[in-house]
């Protein structure tokens, strides 16, 4: 059942040292405010699960929260590389991280298998791909009907998934529209689910009946954080801050510039700053 909590309490109750955690959102609706709260609480030894680690995991990795990262595209979308993640992989700074690398197709289908309660995902993929040689989780099965060899990987079953959404109802039902990504699957695959939302409305009556909805009984905590996806975006509320993604390339290129930025904008800030950050993007 969904509890309406402050972001601080939602994170503290649901995310613990050593957890496997997914902060999902495919370019759209990335739960940045929740990740900043995890950084402030100093939660550590996490296994981070996410298709595109993006700025959100670059920050968590750079602050030393991660022990392991499971991913499929370690880029700053449209800009280039993730420099804090690279520093961890190439120079073990601030600590070494274990990496498990998949394709997007594999990651998406592993969430879907997790949401379905299946032990593994089976699909046509990885043919001729080098990842098979370096990721021991990529195996194959033979179709019992046709004899076709198919790829198989373990399903994703995170301890907790964080997502950001447009709206929650007063009961805690959750609505997402626009690019819906893999959030429904990532949420239903997890043991616990925390959702940050732009706003709470009395009910979803009168809205389009097919908008992606997670019923309140699939969710553990809802926290209202307007602007909580910045610098990614929330369809219908504010645009992607492309300039901030370009700017991140410079900030993350230098260890000291990164530390100073995190100190000023995360450690010494709170979730209330997000609403100001999206003001000019509405």
């Amino acid at each position, binding site marked *: 059942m969904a509890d309406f909590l402050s972001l601080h309490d939602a994170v503290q109750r649901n995310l613990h040292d050593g957890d496997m955690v997914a902060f999902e959102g*495919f*370019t*759209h609706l990335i739960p940045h405010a929740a990740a900043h709260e995890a950084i402030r609480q100093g939660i550590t030894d996490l296994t981070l699960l996410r*298709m*595109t680690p993006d700025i959100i995991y670059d920050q968590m990795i750079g602050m030393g929260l991660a022990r392991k990262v499971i*991913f*499929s*595209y*370690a*880029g700053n*979308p*449209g*800009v280039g*590389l*993730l420099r804090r*993640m*690279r520093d961890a*992989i*190439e120079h073990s700074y601030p600590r070494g991280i274990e990496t498990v*690398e998949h*394709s*997007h*197709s594999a990651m*998406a*289908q592993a*969430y*879907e298998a997790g949401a379905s309660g299946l032990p593994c995902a089976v*699909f*046509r*993929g*990885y*043919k*001729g*791909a*080098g*990842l098979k040689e*370096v990721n021991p989780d990529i195996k194959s099965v033979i179709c019992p009907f046709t004899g*076709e*060899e198919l790829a198989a990987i373990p399903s994703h079953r995170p301890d907790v998934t964080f997502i950001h959404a447009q709206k929650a109802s007063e009961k805690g039902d959750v609505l997402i529209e*626009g*690019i*819906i*990504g*893999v959030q*429904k*699957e990532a949420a239903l695959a997890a043991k616990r689910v925390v959702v940050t939302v732009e706003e709470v409305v009395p009910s979803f009556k009168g809205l389009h009946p097919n908008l992606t909805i997670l019923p309140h009984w699939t969710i553990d905590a809802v926290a209202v954080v307007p602007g909580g996806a910045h610098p990614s*975006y929330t*369809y219908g509320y504010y*645009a*992607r*801050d*492309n*300039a*901030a*993604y*370009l*700017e991140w390339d410079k900030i993350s290129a230098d260890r000291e510039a990164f530390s100073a930025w995190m100190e000023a904008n995360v450690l010494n800030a709170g979730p209330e700053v997000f609403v100001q*950050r999206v003001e*000019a993007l509405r």
Partner: protein
Amino acid sequence: MTNFTPTEMMTIAAARALSNDDVCFVGIGAPSAACNVARLTHAPDITLIYESGTIGTAPEVLPLSIGDGELCETALCTVSVPEMFRYWLMGGRISIGFLGAAQLDRFGNINTTVIGDYTHPKVRLPGGGGAPEIATSCGEIFITLKQAPRSMVNTIDFFTSFGHGEGGDHRQRLGITTKGPTLLITDLAIWRPDPETKEFTVRSLHKGVTRQQVQDNCGWPVRFAASVEETPEPTELELGTLRDLQARTAAAHRGDAR
């Protein structure tokens, strides 16, 4: 038009390869520019698909990322990412996959994962994203990149996505039923695989480009077709469309630095 850059020629030559009936899975960067120039000129009904789940999208400006809001707002429909990869890509509904590359070999194998050893890389690149399955599930693959000896190499450091492997019938031997790379468009030339060996062979040189220039900017000994044509230079419409698109895009992405 006589006044154009090699990159503009590359984008326009790539755009010309697409037709109105194609269903195209669009990689970000150079492929995205080419696909949208095609849509804005000779192929208004082309279906462009981005891996964020947007189908039949028609962006006014080029997206910075594959998931910009613009792609969803202008799309015919938007599906979830698992559905995109299962029903649309794996289901065989996409005719062309259009990819870029950090490293490419003569058989169209692509590396966007690491420079150097995988476990101790010299440079950790972003990785494959959707490319490993795009390369094997789309009907055929077009590749576009700027030529340089460090990007067109004898041996790639990592097989992010499979082209023709060692050449010949390597795809069939792995049970892959799609065509793989059928076209390579660079800033200097248009290449197609040899029908037997599958090695990329120069079919057309862009205006003013010499064979020596193509060789100087390629890490393997270049093969030229028996008859090499000259790529028609960009028309006023093509060049104007590309430049307008890029100007709109630059203005939209500049935003205000916060």
